[in-house]
């Protein structure tokens, strides 16, 4: 291998090589960190919400009549929904995972101010919540109908029972090895709530929240002018039932509107629209940068072949075979690319550390840097192959031409 002579020759004409190496380095730094961001977003998108997403739908009821009996409508709506063939269960709630809006409160194990609360999403609903959401009660018990009350907006108080996610229970009571059922936590600093049940997993409505796995059910029914219903159907019935149920509710009460009718797939798609767009944009940027870098390598290699036409002829005259000429340019590009990817690797790591510290991103996976190195090496070799093949076609008789 001609590493030494090629390296020394590169040092004689280093301008173009340095520019290409820098281009590769910058591409590498951007590529690695973009992949890291894409990976983080994709991982977030794949997290389960805890709901039975494939069989869940939702809609909102908005009353515009000033004298409407909202509580009666609420009771009637849920009765109709639950009695519809194909519906497993239904519940009225304030929010659900991935909705983007809802309630959160701090929970603590001791009452009083400055006790270091743990944030949790609050889902209001009745004893039908567990089955409707499709979560599993892994400890304790569900709400009894007697524990569930209608919310009084003029005299709100926290009901004394809650059902929490396992993640919230572990954060609240990290040293508890046994059951947390029966334990008391304090909400709103001083209002005691007893944990009567633990569910396996359910996300908060905000998918980007640090404490997204912290959620609790509070046994409260909200029958105001605005009601949000979540319906769980038999497998395969969701899409068919959505328009039927929407029509049924709209027909049952002409003084309200049914809006935001969505399957949970649509809820998920809407929730991750930004992440999905970010993945596409970054993917496009990486592809574009890689193409531009590849074209830069093609340009430099083509220039070098033209500039060295005579030199190539001399090498051929001195005994270089066509593969040897090809190898020369491939090796030269490999060396330029190696400088680029090594500098780029350092840049990428530095940029990642900065981004992790500044934007609270997840540190990149260990394999991203070597994978990007291999990709850029391959791109470089593919880009230089064309000009190198052209170089092999230069005739050795060039050597005897004057000039």
């Amino acid at each position, binding site marked *: 291998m001609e590493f030494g002579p090629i390296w*020394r020759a590169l040092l004689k004409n280093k301008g173009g090589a340095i520019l290409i190496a820098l281009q590769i380095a910058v591409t590498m730094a951007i590529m690695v960190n973009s992949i890291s961001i894409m990976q983080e977003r994709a991982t977030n998108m794949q997290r389960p919400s805890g709901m039975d997403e494939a069989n869940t739908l939702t809609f909102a009821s908005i009353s515009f009549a000033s004298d409407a009996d909202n509580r009666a409508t609420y009771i009637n709506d849920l009765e109709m929904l639950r009695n519809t063939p194909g519906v497993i269960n239904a519940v009225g709630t304030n929010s659900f995972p991935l909705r983007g809006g809802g309630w959160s409160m701090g929970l603590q194990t001791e009452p009083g101010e400055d006790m270091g609360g743990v944030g949790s999403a609050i889902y209001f609903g009745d004893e039908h919540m567990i089955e409707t959401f499709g979560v599993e009660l892994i400890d304790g018990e569900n709400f009894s109908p007697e524990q569930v009350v209608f919310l009084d907006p003029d005299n709100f108080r926290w009901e004394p029972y809650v059902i929490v996610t396992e993640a919230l229970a572990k954060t609240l009571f990290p040293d508890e090895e046994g059951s947390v059922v029966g334990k008391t936590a304090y909400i709103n600093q001083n209002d005691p709530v007893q944990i009567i049940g633990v569910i396996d997993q359910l996300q908060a409505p905000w998918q980007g929240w640090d404490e997204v796995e912290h959620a609790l059910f509070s046994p409260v029914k909200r029958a105001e002018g605005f009601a949000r219903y979540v319906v769980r159907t038999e497998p395969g019935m969701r899409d068919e039932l959505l328009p039927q149920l929407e029509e049924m509710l709209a027909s049952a009460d002409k003084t309200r509107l049914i809006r935001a009718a969505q399957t949970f797939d649509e809820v998920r798609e809407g929730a991750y629209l930004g992440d999905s767009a970010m993945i596409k944009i970054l993917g496009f940027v990486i592809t574009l940068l890689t193409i531009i870098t590849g074209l830069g390598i093609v340009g430099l290699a083509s220039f070098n072949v033209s500039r060295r036409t005579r030199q190539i002829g001399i090498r051929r005259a001195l005994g*270089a075979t066509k593969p040897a000429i090809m190898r020369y340019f491939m090796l030269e590009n490999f060396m330029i690319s190696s400088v680029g990817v090594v500098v780029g690797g350092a840049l990428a790591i530095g940029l990642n550390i900065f981004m992790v510290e500044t934007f609270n991103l997840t540190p990149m996976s260990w394999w991203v840097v070597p994978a990007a190195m291999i990709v850029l090496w391959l791109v470089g070799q593919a880009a230089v192959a064309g000009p190198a093949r052209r170089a092999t076609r230069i*005739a*050795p008789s060039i*050597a*005897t031409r004057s000039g």
Partner: protein
Amino acid sequence: MLKMTDVSKIYRTDTVETHALREFSLTVDEGEFVSVTGPSGSGKTTFLNIAGLLEEMTSGTYELDGRDISKLNDRERSRVRNEKIGFIFQSFNLIPELNIFDNVDVPLRYRGLNAAERKRRIEESLDMVGLASRLKHQPAQLSGGQQQRVAIARALAGEPRFLLADEPTGNLDTHMADSVLDLLSEINSNGVTIIMVTHELTLADRAKRNIFVRDGQVTDAAPEFLRAANG
């Protein structure tokens, strides 16, 4: 050593056919120092290109060391060039980006010799041409005569059976030209066959045998106009 029989070379474009060599026949024995002389356009360089396997002939036969060259593929032709032939060009043809050591090293690397053997040959050949102390110099740091000596060292390092020299003194002043020709004579005296293409009869006279080429064919003696042109 070298035997060309009825070799012809025709360059074709869409509209023009140029007969650079016509039924060119020549035999050079081992150890000879032959000059090939002729006016511009006579076919000297085409002969050199074909003799050096830098170009393929259109028809005829060419045997080098008893081997029929016309049947070789590109890889085999490269190997023959590398192992049997040393080239000395008018414009030296050193690679400007490489130092003297690396320039002489170029054909040796293509032969696949190990580093120690290459180093020995490079140092010996540069010593022979009196440039052993300039290993790390760049070509641009040397005079024309010195650069041609490096080119000769590069040709000798491969220990070729014969040297093909294309106007080896064309870019040198008289003093340097004499020095290079002395060197070629010395190399020839060591048993290396040399074919030197030149248009100067005074230089051609330094060879042991003179071949004159006109219109792509070997002629018996130097034409009068060539002698007149050379004074």
